[in-house]
């Protein structure tokens, strides 16, 4: 098994490590870095529990090799809080009861982060299509949609 040295910016800190060429990015994050907020739900990039941001784009880390993240910046759920304050999306999920078991929540939040970055004022329809790559088995999505609307509103107010 060939080894590669990768250098990845994780939530603002550069990490340099030697990894097997076949190591999946999700395993690197969870097992090498012990950041277990990113979850694994399906192995086929169908469920989105492993969603992270790579160079600002939401990607499913179960179907990327660690070496593909070399030289890039990665943001996970652990990087969403700023200065001890919850990100508006985290706050929205709490206020609107957008989570139950919590397993899909980090992936949902990371996906929604890119959605709101690209479209700060999405319609309900756009939110539903926007998170259609992320499965939730508990909430029926109603309150997840509301949580994202809550965050959109708050972020727009803050930006104004």
């Amino acid at each position, binding site marked *: 098994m060939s080894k590669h040295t990768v250098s990845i910016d994780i939530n603002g800190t550069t990490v340099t490590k030697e990894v097997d060429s076949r190591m999946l990015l999700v395993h690197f994050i969870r097992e090498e870095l012990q950041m277990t*907020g990113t979850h694994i739900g*399906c192995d086929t990039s*169908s469920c989105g529990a492993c969603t992270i941001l790579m160079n600002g784009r939401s990607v499913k880390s179960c179907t990327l090799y660690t070496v593909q993240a070399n030289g890039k910046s990665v943001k996970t*759920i652990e990087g969403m809080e700023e200065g001890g304050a919850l990100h508006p999306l985290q706050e929205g999920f709490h206020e609107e009861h957008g989570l*139950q078991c*919590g397993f899909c929540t980090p992936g949902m*939040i990371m996906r929604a982060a890119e959605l709101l970055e690209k479209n700060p004022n999405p319609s309900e329809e756009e939110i539903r299509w926007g998170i259609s790559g992320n499965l939730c*088995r*508990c909430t029926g999505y109603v309150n997840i*949609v509301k949580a994202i609307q809550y965050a959109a509103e708050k972020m727009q107010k803050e930006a104004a």
Partner: protein
Amino acid sequence: MSELKTTPEVCGMGHSMKRKEDARFLRGQGKYTDDVVLPGMLHMDIVRSPYAYAKIKSINTDAAMAIPGVHAVITGDVLKQYNLHWMPTLMSDTQMVLPTDTVMYQSQEVAAVIADDRYIAADAVEAVEVEYEPMQAVVDPFKSMQSDAPVLRTDKEGKTDNHIWHWETGDKDSTEKAFQNADVVVKENVYLPRIHVASIETCGCVASFEPAEGKLTVYMTTQAPHAIRTVVALVAGHVGLSEEKIRIISPDIGGGFGGKVPVYPGYVIAIAASVVIGKPVKWVEDRSENLQADSFARDYHMSVELASSSSGKMEALRIKTVADHGYTDAAANPSKYPAGMFSICTGSYDIKNAFTEMDAYYTNKPPGGVAYRCSFRVTEAIHAIERIVDVLAQKLDRDPADLRMQNFIQPEAFPYQSALGWEYDSGDYPRALKLAMDTIGYDDLRKEQAEKRAKGELMGIGLSTFTEVVGAGPSKDFDILGIKMFDSCELRIHPTGKAIARFGTKSQGQGHETTYAQILAEELGIPAAHIQIEEGDTDTAPYGLGTYASRSTPTAGAAAAKAAHKVRDKARKIAAHLLEVSEEDLEWEVGKFYVKGSPEQSKTIQDIAFAAYTNHPQGLEAGLEATHYYDPPNLTFPFGSYICVVDIDPKTAEIKVRRFVAIDDCGNIINPMIVEGQIHGGLTQGLAPAMYEELIYDEDGNILNGNFMDYLLPTAVETPNWETDRTVTPSPHHPLGAKGVAESPTVGAPPAIANAVVDALSHLGVENMDIPITPYKVWQVLKEKGAVA
């Protein structure tokens, strides 16, 4: 519940308190089983059978063992040395942990590899060489029941067929007579296909045996940790695992829905591996393994008959069912109820004569028969009755709402004795249906439907007015493997007036850390924010049967109230001592005792708690704590009325759920926000089998959709914006008047959707369609009826 007894600061029952558990989940700090890492931990991966039915001729592990980093390959022959190659199921059937000679379903565990990391383990799985001799699988239960079918369970001495059990209940003769004398009889074959709970977290464990102390700790995805501890002690006692040395920890669980009740072979193999190797062993299945080998739900073939008078009075119900259990009965029903609470099948209707019988068969499919967010086969029963009521309405040319109103058990009839033996505790079905009809504008929808039909457009309105049965259960009738189905709360009040409470249940997203705290806040006046709730560690929590079948509020929730009452009884003694009055002179009001007629003389629960440790009366034990094991006197019977409107594109057969109104009644409510969230989730898990989900096997027993690319869970796009409301009919026997809620919508939604689609097509002569109702199925019907080219 109309009025709140507590302030928002105390946050007792009825407050939409934001969840306490959110804090860690929002930050990615939940601790799920796969997040557990122990020093020296090894990883396990499983070799699985490509065949549904085959002899194992040989297993060669040499190449796998030669891979650096591989510690062991465990086969059935290895486990056989310890007599651990078979285990009992929760239904007292038997199941292989690992086979020694035959595999009985595709993806069955054949061997397990233990290695330094998950990648090496996966390499070694590929390197294990297994030689099979395939045999013709029996996949269809109607073939399995034939006298010339091969006998599958040759491990059972003297077994000459594939029949597992026969179960029946009700008065066969009176039912037969009622059918003979009835003006009208309708009959349909209704199939509820095999589906899978597919919680987003799969199953797994970390088993850690410490040889020096002989202590086994298992972190595992289980909804019932205490029962698991006892099962492990019973199964592995002969190899030295004694119950006081077994600790089961159920950490955060990423959804359960019934799929995390059974004991899967992977858990047992990981435990055995840790004991043999003396190091922690982690096993976490992938999604394909989860869908292909873990317990399925449903798979009931029901023949349903309903008799009525010409005026629409329902006279008799008869259901005959064939149940496909796969290769072993690994359901998780109470012992006396092999078909769970299927006998709730008379539903919300006053039907005096009923008889139901069922035969279960083995096939070469994975074992199971567990819940899919449904308490013990209630979904199957309610689908049968709610479908056949619509068939009757169609036959009599009656409006389905009107026919339901005519036949409902009336509010004054409670407690109601059903023909099949249940005592329904409380209900007001006409009120719930009327609210649903008013909310959705039923009469206007019927007019719109008539206009659309005249124009060739397809629109359907479907109703479901169901009764649930939850809260198992009273000890005289309910046990699992002999363990009675009580549940428990152990409550301790700290000197500063804060509290910790531990329970025998285990949340998988239901929000127990919040709702149990609210119950205790209601009963004691201690703010819910100051009450710590813990579950899931068998070394610290009191014994209980766990969380499934919507039983936590009916059992452990009641135990919380009762434990609080015990604490209050002692607090009264302490307050009397502090106020220098007799106990009888004291009155309780939320959070304090005061002297009758002199309310300024009072002691708060915080004053009393401090005194319990600093100034307790002589002759009274110090401290302030209580434990209660609650044995419910009856089950609880939540109910609801759902109305669904669908539009079907006559050209593409695409089905769109336009509106769905759900009126639920779960008695008194602890946290309205959480109840609504549970209903949203339950409705979506009703939509899923109604329109999308089915585990499909070919005639050789190959699964055709064993992954998330092919097994379709609804996304946010397919899921409608659920409209929810409630009526409140308290349970008369539950200490809080509560009933349980999480599964009602999964029970009630599928027939509402199926009825809506059939209603849209009824003018073409369609009487029944089996779920999942896909556009392709609808298109086939349209084609058959000549409605599309």
